[in-house]
């Protein structure tokens, strides 16, 4: 399947079902969605609407039962597990609600981890980690462990880790879910800054509509695994 030159992500009739006992949960049920390069999309919906499942499918952490996902010209369904791992390494950066830093590693080691996986040369790692941490304002805290940092700092560190391999697509799963509103805003400002300065495509899952309205170019509403509505958001785009 082809995408046009400006398209970063396209899904076509994407389906992901789970079996739960005897019943089948249609977590994602025929979602067709496209995101342009540098676009900031918010996936909105109630709990269990399938937005996180969709994000995992886009991240290459999960495989669709049917339909297609094309990210930066790659059809994920055709990739084997090794190629999918390489895709996660180089094309996608992820941020989670619970930060997901490795607790027994220092900040520097956490940010270094994707570079280890991507086999970045040892001597280049330090500079790149420092650069990524500078972008999120944590370059002074490289030797600290996650437990020594606040939630906002941890999420910033997670952002630095997501950035360090210079991915084209940033996937954020409720990035402010565990943060107070002030810190949440800081994080969102950072994400927006990355979106604008690096031209990184951002797809963010959230259930906070105000946040989506404030930052996203487009809001996609999901319900019961189906795409309910897409709303262009001039406010987010204009800001």
């Amino acid at each position, binding site marked *: 399947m082809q995408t046009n030159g400006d398209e970063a992500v396209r899904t076509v009739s994407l389906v992901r079902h789970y079996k739960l006992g005897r019943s089948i949960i249609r977590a994602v049920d025929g979602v067709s969605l496209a995101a342009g390069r540098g676009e900031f999309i918010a996936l909105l919906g109630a709990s269990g609407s399938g937005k996180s499942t969709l994000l*995992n499918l886009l*991240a290459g*952490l*999960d495989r669709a039962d049917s339909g297609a996902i094309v990210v930066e010209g790659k059809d994920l369904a055709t990739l084997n*597990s*090794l190629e999918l*791992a*390489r*895709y*996660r*390494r*180089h094309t996608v950066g*992820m941020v*989670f*609600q*619970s930060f*997901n*830093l*490795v607790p*027994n*590693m220092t900040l520097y080691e956490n940010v270094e*981890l*994707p570079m*280890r*996986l*991507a*086999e970045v040369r040892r001597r280049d790692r330090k500079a790149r980690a420092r650069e990524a941490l500078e972008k999120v304002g944590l370059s002074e805290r490289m030797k600290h462990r996650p437990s020594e940092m606040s939630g906002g700092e941890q999420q910033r560190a997670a952002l630095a*880790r997501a950035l360090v*391999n210079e991915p084209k697509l940033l996937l954020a799963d409720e990035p402010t879910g565990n943060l107070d509103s002030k810190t949440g805003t800081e994080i969102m400002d950072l994400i927006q800054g990355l979106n604008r300065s690096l031209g990184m495509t951002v797809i963010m899952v959230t259930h906070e509509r105000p946040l989506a309205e404030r930052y996203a170019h487009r809001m996609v509403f999901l319900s019961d695994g189906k795409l309910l509505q897409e709303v262009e958001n001039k406010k987010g785009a204009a800001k």
Partner: protein
Amino acid sequence: MKLYDMVELAGRNLREAGLRNSLTTLGIGVGVASLVAMVSLGLGLERLFSKQLGRSGLFDSVFVTARQETRALRPGQPAETGPPKPLDDSARKALGEIPDVVEVYSNFTAVGEFRLEAAKPEDSHFSIIGGLPPSARGSEAFDEFQGQFYSSDNSAEVILLAQFARALLGLPQQPQSADQKLTQEQVNQLLGKNLILRYAERSAGPPPPAAGDPAGSSSDTSAFNVVRREQALKIVGVVTNEPYRGMRQGMTSVLLPVSFAESLNMVQPGDVRSLISPTQGKRYNSLTVRVARSKQVPQVEEQIKKLGFTAFSLMDASRGLALAFKILDTFLGIFGSLALVVASLGIVNTLVMAILERRREIGIMKALGASDGDVKRIFFVEAGTMGVLGGSLGVGMGWLIGRIINFGANQYLQRNLDAKPQDFWYVSLWLVIFAVLFSVLVSLFAGLYPASRAARLDPVQALRHD
């Protein structure tokens, strides 16, 4: 992921659960130690036995006789064709020229009567006389030697068996099984003294004309006279056991340097034959051919047979012994390995526990782009590291256990049996390499299941909010 990154991550993971992993590694160490201790006992015993057997002079020697004799003595053997080659001096020279042969000597046996120079003639003692080659100095019998070895192979010196020395000194005879060793004082009464040997000499020269042979048999050079002779011998040493007992028959209580013994031209039992069938020149009843190493025996034996002589060695018995030791080593190895197998279950347990603990971390790694293979290899490196460390630790412990038990056993033997200290334990370089490799292999095998389980972990499940 690059190997050094993998090793680094594995190392950090091992350090994180330090106590648990140390205990698991110690478990492997104990397993390897038991393997090393068992196998090194087997190897040590084998070495000890082969060393002792080697020194007995039985396993590095080939006994050579002229063909005919063996056929006559062993009716079961197939008849060998062709005229028998005489076992004479030229044959002895030819045997000495076979590669790897270090020594050829006559199996000298004769009888004589002995008395101390100072003793009355009626205090004479009868004994079988044997000859010792210079290499006999290394025989185990000389471990408990009082005195000195012959100054040369041609000197008129004698080494006595303790039992015979007792008789010479007029001490009460001990039963055969008892310790025959003399006190230093008793030995000093003999050392340096002259022992007078009375023997029968084969004297060359024309025999008196026989009644039925008026023409005489002066052309028969093999004929000889028997003349009674006396020879003074200097006593240089006393041994408790008979050195190079080998194929000698009867108890040989008086031992002379073999060259000197031959030079005396004593009548030997085999000479009776040359009386019956006239032959040319000096013949040996049998010769012993000694090789440098026992594994050269078969080829030397083959060469001797090609020269036209009958050769016999105890190599077959020695081969059987080597096989028996291989079987012993294998069984000891299997028993030793059992502990390692139990230890490997410890690895499985530890790594499965680690998967449960690091579930989220594995999920994060996968989300960041770790492949199934990366995750699997990290677990393998962890298992392998425990194997290497445990293996090295185990080799050290095994060696130490061996040393301690060896020391204890020697103390016991020395106190109770008055035996010399021996090395029952032998840790060879091969055993060390094998033990560490085996430990790594077992550890990797144990890591197989946890590693593949970790690799199969679904990142979505692992990262689900909890």
